[in-house]
């Protein structure tokens, strides 16, 4: 784990300096909304990276941008040794863009390959099990769609066998293949969504708040199923959620996001046991503790103020407006992610 040397063989997915800006029209002029601003992380094969942060901090956008469901503004994404996107910006070892003499960023050749072959390798499970399934299609057709698109069968019978196998795999009754999605409960619908993602036999799945819409007992079932599937199929997850307990349970490593930036990445237990970034500290202090005795003695760190608007970001570190340790340096420059030992990366000048 300590070894952070970046060889292409170690990581399945590498995201470097990913930026996703959306133009927002305000009257006559257009402002850039920086949903994701310079995010870098990497995922090993068969690993789960948890991505946490409050609402609107860009978690979902990260997931969608790296699957290129949006067109990222800048960044480089490598999957399984192949470049999936490269807009050509160059960065030095401190993570700052390389500038030429006139102050313009140096640009390498941009690479944007066709995503179609990658779609077989990378899939997504969506948040809302009610809107992520087409109400006019039977379960068989929903799960069969990826098989149709990628032509993964040679006969009708083989298609049906594969679909029934997938339904069995996610714990659905195969007799219900001819039914419509609205006839199933929330948990069952999420299983259908998972079966659809698994149909192409991907190496990597983005789970975008995949359990948030389910009630707690069903959440446990689905989370356990994600883990079983990982053991069976060796698939890697980017597990996006806002429930820290669930993320801690399923993840090998956790990344914490605030206002479009990753502020801390560490092993799940390390992050829970000894968080460093002030934002992570306050986030963890907000987790409800199921024991009233301990809860009475624990202190919540309540942040002052509101999250700044992503349309009007503070200079330097985005968290400085609410941070107890903020100094002038924080206002001047964004702290880079630096290693604090054992791959525990933190972006903070003062801690």
């Amino acid at each position: 784990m300590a070894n952070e040397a970046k060889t292409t063989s170690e990581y399945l997915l590498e995201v470097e300096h990913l930026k996703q800006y959306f133009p927002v029209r305000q009257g006559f002029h257009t402002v850039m909304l920086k949903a994701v601003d310079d995010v870098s992380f990497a995922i090993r094969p068969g690993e789960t990276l948890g991505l946490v942060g409050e609402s609107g901090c860009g978690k979902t956008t990260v997931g969608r941008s790296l699957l290129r469901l949006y067109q990222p503004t800048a960044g480089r994404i490598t999957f399984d040794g192949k470049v999936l996107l490269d807009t050509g910006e160059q960065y030095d070892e401190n993570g700052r863009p390389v500038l030429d003499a006139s102050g313009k960023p140096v640009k390498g050749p941009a690479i944007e390959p066709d995503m179609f072959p990658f779609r077989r390798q990378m899939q997504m499970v969506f948040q809302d099990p009610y809107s992520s399934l087409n109400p006019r299609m039977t379960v068989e057709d929903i799960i069969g769609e990826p098989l149709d698109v990628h032509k993964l069968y040679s006969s009708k019978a083989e298609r049906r066998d594969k679909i029934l196998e997938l339904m069995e795999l996610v714990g659905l009754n195969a007799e219900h293949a001819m039914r419509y999605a609205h006839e199933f409960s929330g948990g069952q619908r999420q299983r259908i969504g998972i079966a659809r993602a698994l149909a192409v036999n991907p190496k990597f799945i983005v789970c975008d708040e995949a359990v948030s819409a389910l009630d707690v007992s069903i959440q446990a079932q689905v989370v356990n199923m994600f883990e079983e599937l990982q053991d069976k199929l060796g698939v890697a997850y980017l597990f996006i959620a806002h429930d820290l307990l669930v993320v801690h349970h399923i993840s090998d490593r956790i990344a914490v996001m605030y206002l479009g930036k990753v502020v801390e990445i560490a092993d799940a237990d390390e992050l829970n046991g000894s968080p460093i970034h002030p934002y992570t500290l306050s986030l963890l202090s907000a987790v409800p503790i199921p024991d009233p005795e301990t809860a009475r003695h624990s202190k919540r760190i309540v942040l002052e103020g509101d999250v700044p608007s992503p349309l009007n970001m503070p200079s330097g570190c985005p968290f400085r407006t609410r941070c107890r340790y903020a100094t002038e340096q924080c206002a001047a420059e964004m702290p880079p992610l630096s290693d604090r030992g054992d791959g525990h990366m933190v972006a903070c000048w003062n801690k």
Partner: protein
Amino acid sequence: MQGTDREQYKKRQFLSAQIDLSRFNPSSFEKATDEEKKQQDVMGESTTFFRDGMRRLRKNPLAMGSIIVLAAIILIIIIAPHIVPYSYSEIISIDGKRDKSAANLAPFEYSKMEQQYMDRTGEKLFPHIFGTDSLSRDYFIRVIYGTRVSLSVGVVAAIMVLIIGLLYGSIAGYFGGKVDLVMMRIVDVIYSLPDMLIIILLSVVLDQTLEPLITGTVFARLGVNMISMFVVFSLLYWVGMARLIRGQILTIKNNEYVLAAKCIGTKDRQILKKHIFPNILSVVIITTALQVPSAIFTESYLSFLGLGVSAPLTSLGSLANDARSGLQSYPHRLVIPALVICLIVLALNLLGDGLRDAFDSKLN
């Protein structure tokens, strides 16, 4: 043992939610077997979207009544011309001689010549069910043909509006952005034109320009006016449909299942065909059903103004127009076509409403 448990149970704080465990035995906590779990797995009767909608439609007495009325009207206009021996343009004659006394007959009345003919030969002539008009033509068969014309104008216009609106609206809605902006401004321009004025101008102009184009083709049998009416409808009324479909597609393409399809790698055309169209279909069917009566209405209106089908072919609107002159003496000639228009438009509107109630999932 149990006694002390009871004691503790009594001693607990009165707001405590602690459960008295003595009421349970170990067998209460055994895990459910797979079979028991499967029994819990209750699901309703499987229904498709269409079957479910039809079931709801059948329960709506107004909609079912409308279907019966429409079916009866369609049946009559198909069969009646085969039974009634008169044609819509035929002036009644007896033994090859024009029957001058046959003008303006009341319903089921025979003219003098017909009466004499029947007395002479003993043969029974077919009665004039609605009487005759001022040119001694059988009024019943004219109403039948008028209904044929009005209904076909309505249906063809609705279908043309559907095709153009569907293509235009789905392109604008699906691609969005600048394409949408430009296409919708064109729609706004067409929408802002006063439609009656345009219809009248177009039908006057088309009358003259179309005539040389269609002579000798199949269209010639339809008549210039009828074709110009189709063109006018399809040029003007698709804008409402296009707007509606664009709006529907805009809401549906933001659903996560469309994003999921993109994530799978489904092509744009397939996404439109498999994910978007099936979901707007109910709205499209309903709007088309409601478009038919509005087209019939406009056609009657135009015919009433004298811009409709050309004589001797007639439509319900022009029948009503012709009846104006003899309104005091022969009111039934105005009442009958007016009633048929009412019946068709009312039935189609009620059917459209019924379809919406049955198939629009947002209302359920």
